[in-house]
């Protein structure tokens, strides 16, 4: 806040003269990454800059010829002008590749590797399961569920034959 107030008092001219007094060292060097770049993208059809920045002499003369009537240009010259402005055509940039095969292969490989790791972990890291997994305990659980008539209409107990004490065929 104070700085802006001070600036408005001093005035814009005074700032620029102070820069000049310092011999032009007040201007920052322009980095390459701050300048517009060229890109081939389907969504943004017109990039910020032309592809070819430094033209050869033939390209320069072609650009001069472009200033005249375009009907006078041959097909090869039109294509050459296109290639000066753009790197890839839409057909080239949209072309599919076989990269998906490597991606799927890599995915399956790492899923398999993870499966091996999980299997080793189950065998060597985890302790024993609780006693509630014993077959006798499981049988008692099953009998209790049938006694309680769990889902008797369409689900669990509906598949049990209570007369003959077995699963329905």
């Amino acid at each position: 806040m104070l700085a802006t107030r001070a600036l408005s008092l001093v005035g814009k001219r005074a700032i620029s003269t102070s820069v000049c007094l310092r011999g032009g060292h007040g201007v920052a060097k322009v980095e390459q990454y701050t300048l517009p770049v060229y890109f081939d993208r389907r969504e943004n059809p017109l990039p910020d800059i032309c592809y070819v920045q430094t033209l050869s002499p033939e390209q320069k003369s072609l650009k001069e010829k472009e200033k005249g009537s375009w009907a006078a240009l041959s097909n090869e010259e039109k294509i050459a002008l296109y290639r000066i402005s753009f790197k890839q055509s839409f057909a080239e940039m949209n072309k599919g590749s076989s990269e998906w095969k490597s991606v799927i292969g890599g995915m399956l490989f790492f899923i398999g590797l993870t499966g091996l790791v999980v299997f080793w972990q189950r065998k060597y890291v985890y302790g024993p399961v609780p006693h509630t997994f014993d077959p006798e305990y499981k049988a008692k659980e099953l009998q209790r569920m049938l006694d309680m008539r769990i889902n008797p209409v369409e689900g669990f107990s509906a598949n049990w034959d209570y007369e003959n004490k077995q699963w329905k065929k």
Partner: protein
Amino acid sequence: MSLPKPVMRGLLAKRLRFHLPIAFTLSIVAALMFKYSVTEPRKKAYADFYKQYDSVKEYNRMREAGIFESVRPSGE
């Protein structure tokens, strides 16, 4: 180098004209199939079950099996 000018307008309308009737019919067909293969049999199964259901008999069966905590089997 003289290709015909491609179609520039009405692309969404054309796509919708083709796809919307198909989408609606497929959705309605899916709903009808679900209704007549899942919900109608389920309603019938429940109706049939409760037609012959004697709740007191079932209660006594469950009581004798010993699953209740508030009322023990008649033997004890």
